């Protein structure tokens, strides 16, 4: 899909004879058909979707991966993106972290009565744009509408099917002692971008969400390093700390990281300081952790540096057989402390 097509697709909105979503749009009747035929199908069109059948029918060969995720972000529009991009990139990335290239997505909307049609249109176009960028097609879907107050503007679920990379052997059981831990980029931007727009917390910043599709980046790594890539996980909810704790607990190893190697921008760090948040726990949407055989770690970082999604990649630590089940961080001043799982949501502190 070239740039020209993308631009054409994100405009203009068809002449809907309604301004906001109402319960009728989920009834299956005339309003549903209007919304789908002059909206959704037009934007997302492809051979499989165009059949307008109850489900998509297709053939796929080889080993497959299947993943699903629901998106409930508030606010739905945030600096650097919107819920539509998250819904595509999130599922594409989940598949990529399994070692699979996303091929087809399902797309289900739960819309809240009163959602301005213009916002829905923008989100829909973002979905199309992101899907094209990631090389994935939306082939089946669903739209439901709930009463005002029963939702939060729009919830989206996407499920995806992807074809496994033939050299992929990614999982906790592949992790070995002395493996090195690589992070693909600056952390905590997404969570801070969202928080900067939340009611009661608004602050001036130009921090943008890092949402992006990582499938082509992962493909490059698997093409070149194959089974020497032992583990991949995108550091979304719960941030880097949660992924590393999963590695320590489910992988049965100890994890060592060095604070001074963890890439985080001054601006994000400043916002975290102000809000009393630890960037290690803040959500990312375009950053992944990659655990690799030590012999290829430098080469992996070099490849990432050449990729648009890994310019700030860095080796942040290693896997050890000591302190099993725990993540230990060496602080900037040389002290050591445990990085635990987050209990509940991180909340801004008092002072």
């Amino acid at each position, binding site marked *: 899909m070239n740039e020209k097509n993308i631009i054409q697709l994100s405009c203009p909105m068809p002449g809907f004879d309604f301004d906001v979503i109402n319960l009728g749009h989920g009834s299956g009747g005339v309003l549903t058909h209007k919304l789908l035929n002059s909206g959704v199908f037009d934007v997302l069109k492809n051979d499989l979707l165009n059949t307008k059948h109850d489900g998509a029918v297709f053939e796929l060969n080889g080993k497959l991966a299947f993943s699903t995720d629901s998106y409930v972000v508030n606010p739905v529009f945030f600096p650097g993106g919107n819920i539509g991009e998250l819904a595509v990139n999130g599922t594409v990335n989940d598949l990529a972290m399994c070692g699979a290239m996303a091929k087809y997505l399902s797309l289900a909307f739960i819309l809240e009565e009163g959602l301005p049609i213009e916002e829905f249109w923008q989100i829909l176009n973002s979905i199309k744009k992101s899907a094209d960028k990631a090389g994935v097609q939306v082939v089946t879907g669903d739209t439901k509408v709930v009463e005002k107050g029963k939702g939060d503007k729009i919830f989206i679920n996407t499920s995806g099917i992807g074809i496994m990379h033939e050299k992929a052997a990614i999982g906790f059981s592949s992790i070995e002692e002395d493996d090195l831990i690589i992070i693909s980029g600056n952390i905590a931007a997404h969570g801070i971008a969202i928080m900067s727009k939340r009611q009661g917390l608004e602050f001036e910043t130009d921090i943008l969400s890092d949402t992006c599709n990582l499938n082509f980046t992962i493909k490059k790594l698997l093409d070149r390093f194959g089974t020497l890539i032992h583990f991949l996980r995108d550091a979304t909810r719960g941030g880097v700390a949660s992924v590393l704790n999963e590695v320590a607990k489910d992988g049965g190893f100890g994890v060592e990281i060095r604070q001074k190697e963890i890439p985080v921008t*001054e601006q994000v760090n400043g916002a975290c300081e102000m809000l009393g948040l630890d960037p290690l726990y803040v959500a990312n949407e375009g950053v992944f952790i990659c655990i690799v055989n030590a012999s290829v770690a430098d080469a992996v970082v070099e490849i990432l540096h050449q990729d648009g999604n890994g310019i700030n990649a860095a080796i942040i630590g290693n896997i050890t057989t000591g302190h099993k089940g725990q993540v*230990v961080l060496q602080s*900037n001043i040389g*002290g050591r*402390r445990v990085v635990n799982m987050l209990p509940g949501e991180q909340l*801004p502190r008092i002072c």
Partner: protein
Amino acid sequence: MKYLHEYRDAAVADKYLAELKHVVTRPWTIMEVCGGQTHSLVKNGILSLLPDKINMVHGPGCPVCVTPLHLIDKAVYLAEEKNVILCSYGDMVRVPGSKKSLLEAKAAGADVRILYSPLEAVKLAKENPDKEVVFFAVGFETTAPANALSVLHACREAVMNYSILTSHVLVPPAIEAIVNDKANVVQGFLAAGHVCTIMGMDEYYPIVEKYKLPIVVTGFEPVDLLQGILMVVKQLERGEYKLENQYSRVVRPEGNPEARQVIEDIFEIADREWRGIGNIPLSGYEVNNNYAAYDANRKFAIDLTKAGESKECIAGEILRGIKKPGQCPQFGKKCTPLNPLGAPMVSSEGACAAYYHFSKMEELV
């Protein structure tokens, strides 16, 4: 980030650590008063770097931890029963009341909002004229000016559906209560830098003189804390006691006169109950009579039965520096951040939470 990197510099930290090791000849017990300092000590792994002879004990400076149970119950009651939009700083909402926390009340349908600034609450009151908006104004002297300012703003703009539920506490009376405690072990204090930013240093001179204890006003970054500890240890080793200011880049001797004026305009000093510690005379702020209309305690005069604290929680001893979190039999077992028996396990400034989040279980005691 200017004034941050310099105070997180490993080489400078090493220099202070080396000097500390050189200077210290005897065991000393030092209390950092502020929960923010506790958090930084543990988070930066400083406790693991200090010479064994230096024993840091953690003070009562966690506003959320010392907010009395019955006030949390009152906040929950207002949110659930009185058509009130209850606004709070984030830390506060997870602290357990006798029946539930504000977060649990929110989950059950009460209108509880987490705000970063009390001025946002005044805005909410203007936007919701048919509702009462109450801000849960907890904190030490640090948050008092902002909370007072919200009352001034509301008054100036004639917003009558706004009030604050105060639980404001003061550092100097707390230091005196700790020193006067029969079980006291503290020989020197790191005073809370941010509190002194507002209040200045004057109120600490009499304490230093009366109890012959070193007090060093200290910041929050690793280098601040190491330098502050070094300054206290040097005094102790020499047998001196004086008030010093490590945090001079922020703290002026006179504090912030404008902020103090706002506090004086709105509040008056009153007796206060500290959760886990008990009543301390003249240790807090209440809204004064001139602004009684903005005092949620008077606006919603209800008398909830005072509930008892968990008998298993030793928060009182933790907050007075008599025990450390690892010495509590329930720590990490029955009491965790997800199922806290007491407030110090909840707040990001609580000593128990800091130990739980950042320490290895075997290194706790």
